[in-house]
């Protein structure tokens, strides 16, 4: 027992350094001992152990033997759930909207990731381990997204969820039609109506089809051995759209009203692709059957509405009703604050619509994982999956639940006790820095 405690303390010290110095946390063999394990996909195991090696879940059971040198995390009396996945976030990015053009598919969040954004850490403190960082909603066709893991302290590249299928943002309704509305002598940007929004999307895919044909013709001529060929110009606006049509890129479409949702599903079908997720989708309950038939997922809010005209017809039963109709539903934050209590957002569906505990937890774990096509890696506690966990002091669907530790790839990135120490160290550091910087300021005066 003493040995174990020593190991745990050593782990603490190591992690403190991480946070202070910004280095990478250390992966090590780890046993999470004695917690109530909410696997999400395989029920609940009381007093269970989880063995983690090389950042992966190796074994789940009771009374597992602890390998030598393993870090033991005492979760007795606590609840271990899969790391929370936020399907709609705008943190850790230095720009969000390229609103100057109606189609901004040449842009991408990956280019502007900011690994020093403190929200990465603050959301870890809410149990979030994976986020889908989306471009804003200023354009019918927006920029490319980046799925990240909250590996606080790593560089921008280290944040990326390697192997996640790339995606892109679309947006319908009020936001894209009112972007740059002709203020101060700036020309209005087309489109200005919902008709226009759909037209922009249809025209873009028509162009992308022609572009794809151009390349196919070129490749065919090249295969025939034609000499002196000049390849077509690469167009970074159209390339992502070709990838969408080829099923290599997921569409995450911001939408509210039932009519615009149906419009988009039809246009996608016209160009023979599927919408991966409808985002916000507050009127999704009205067309849940159609959404399910199309095969789109829906990522919505629990009970947030009426902040603009198109959000007036929302109801808190949305997530539950869409789930009942067979739609793959997730709850997202779209907010660095709300992301810190997505467990409470999920809990609301128990009241509004009567989802089961497991269904509610799925809304913030396995379902968003499926929507992002990363469910082979994350979203549930299963052998072989990434060791991403949120450990709560009580059941995460309780309003009293407070995250105690958050683990990504088998590394402790957040620890509540340790955090208290860290806060003290940061206050001291600030005071020291201000002291050091003082003479320069006084000289100026």
């Amino acid at each position, binding site marked *: 027992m003493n040995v174990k405690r020593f190991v745990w303390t050593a782990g603490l010290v190591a992690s403190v350094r991480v946070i202070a110095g910004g280095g990478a946390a250390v992966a090590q063999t780890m046993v999470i001992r004695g917690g109530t394990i909410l696997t999400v996909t395989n029920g609940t195991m009381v007093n269970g152990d989880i063995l983690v090696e090389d950042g992966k879940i190796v074994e789940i059971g009771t009374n597992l033997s602890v390998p030598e040198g393993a870090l033991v995390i005492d979760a007795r009396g606590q609840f271990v759930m899969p790391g929370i996945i936020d399907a709609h976030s705008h943190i850790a990015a*230095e720009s969000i909207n390229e609103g*100057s053009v109606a189609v901004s598919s040449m842009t991408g969040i990956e*280019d502007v990731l900011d690994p020093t954004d403190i929200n990465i850490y603050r959301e870890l403190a809410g149990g979030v381990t994976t986020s889908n960082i989306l471009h804003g909603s200023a354009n019918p066709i927006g920029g490319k997204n980046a799925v990240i893991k909250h590996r606080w302290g790593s560089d*921008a590249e280290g944040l990326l969820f390697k192997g996640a299928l790339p995606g892109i943002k679309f947006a319908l309704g009020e936001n894209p039609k009112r972007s740059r509305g002709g203020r101060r002598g700036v020309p209005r940007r087309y489109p200005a109506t919902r008709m226009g929004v759909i037209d922009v999307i249809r025209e873009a895919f028509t162009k992308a089809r022609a572009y794809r044909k151009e390349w196919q013709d070129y490749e065919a001529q090249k295969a025939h051995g034609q000499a002196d060929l000049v390849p077509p110009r690469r167009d970074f606006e159209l390339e992502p759209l070709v990838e969408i049509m080829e099923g290599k890129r997921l569409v995450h479409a911001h939408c509210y009203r039932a009519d615009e949702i149906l419009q988009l599903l039809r246009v996608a079908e016209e160009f023979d692709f599927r919408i991966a997720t409808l985002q916000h989708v507050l009127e999704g309950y009205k067309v849940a059957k159609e959404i399910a038939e199309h095969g789109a997922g829906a990522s919505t809010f629990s009970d947030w509405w009426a902040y603009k005209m198109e959000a007036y017809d929302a109801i808190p039963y949305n997530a539950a009703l869409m789930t009942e109709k067979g739609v793959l539903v997730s709850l997202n934050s779209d907010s660095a604050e709300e992301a810190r209590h997505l467990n409470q957002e999920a809990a609301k569906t128990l009241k509004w619509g009567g989802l089961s505990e497991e269904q509610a937890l799925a809304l913030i774990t396995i379902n968003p994982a499926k929507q992002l096509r990363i469910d082979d890696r994350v979203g549930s506690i299963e052998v072989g999956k990434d060791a991403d966990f949120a450990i709560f002091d009580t059941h995460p669907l309780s309003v009293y639940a407070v995250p105690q530790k958050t683990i990504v790839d088998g590394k402790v990135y957040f620890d509540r006790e340790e955090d208290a120490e860290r806060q003290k160290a940061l206050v001291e550091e600030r005071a020291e820095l201000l002291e050091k910087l003082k003479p*320069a300021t006084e000289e100026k005066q």
Partner: protein
Amino acid sequence: MKTNVLRLCIASALIATTSAAGERPKGPDRYAITGARIVTGSGQVIEQGTLVLEHGLITAVGASVEVPDGVWVIDGSGKVVYPGLVDALSDIALEKSEASGDAPFSRGPLDRPGTTSWAAAADALVLDDDRVEAWRNAGFTSTVSSPSTGIVSGQAAFLNLAGERDEDLVVATPVALRVNFEPNANRSFPGSLMGVLAYIRQVFADASHYRVSQTAYAREPRGKRRPRYDRALAPLAEAQVDGWPVLMPGHWEHEIERAVRLGREIGVRPVVYGLHEGHRAAEFLASENVAVLVSLKWPEADEDRDPEAEEPLRVLRMREQAPKTPAALAKAGVMFGFYSDGLESPKEIFASLRKAIDRGLTHESALHALTLGPATIFGVDDRLGSLEAGKIANVIVADGALFDEDTRIETVFVDGAKYEIRKSTDEGGSP
């Protein structure tokens, strides 16, 4: 007020050795500096040696060099001789760009927003820039001057800071292409950082396509539609093929990494400028073998900030730690140069340098980053940057160690022309 200005003008005309910045001093163009401590800048220090400058070039340097007949001999005993210094990025001696009014409204990459890649600093020189003389008097014999506005600003030139005509200044052109990550202010494309980065990726891809299609068309125009002429693209294609340094901004560690990765992706040799958090990126830069330009304008608190607002810790950290960047880069073996970044006088430049020295930068590394470092980065180390026979006679003579606070620079040679720096009350002149 008018009379004051007039009096000041007369005074400074008297103090300066020449009335106009560009005018060469009349006199011989063969000199020998004897008995001086010579810091060659290429690793060698001659405790008591002779340096011979003839017709604009260094013709001999060493401890036992014979003084040729007919040269003007300068007694260098008690003096220290250094290679002329380089301000590795500025807009000194450049015409002010016509930044009047808004940039044209751009609808997408094909409008080539903020792109003036054809603009060459060497073609827009003006001699009546006060900084030519001020910088030269402080020992800066050269600068890399570049157009600086827009996204792809244009072509930098390596200049010597003396000459009778504009053309005399140019040592080499183009020596680099300057890129900024500034979005368009008028809500046209690109209006965001990610739009700028996407645009840069597209315009460089267009440039390589331009080169391929123009070559193919020149080889056999018949039966082909002619590729569209685009003056923005040819210099970019040259930068890709000839390996021009492409200057990209980056202060924070992640910005530095972003610039390097983007540079690699678009097929150019990235040189990052800024670097205030460069101390954290030193190992990365060394492993990527990327050279950098360090801004000497160390970050300071915004004077207009809300005094009640608490500044983020990372901002405080950067402000306190920025001056340790040069030492960290030197330790990691990263090639770097210094640039003035809008500092208004050489006095400020030297004050900044002393801060870096206080934080561990050796005098030797500091000198390298002001001489051979930038000369190497911009590909002119074969002709200047150190005191070696055959190189351009850019030389400074000081009465002590260069970075000491009370050292005075007494004589500066640019292209072998001698400028004596008189003691002046003007504090801007000497370090």
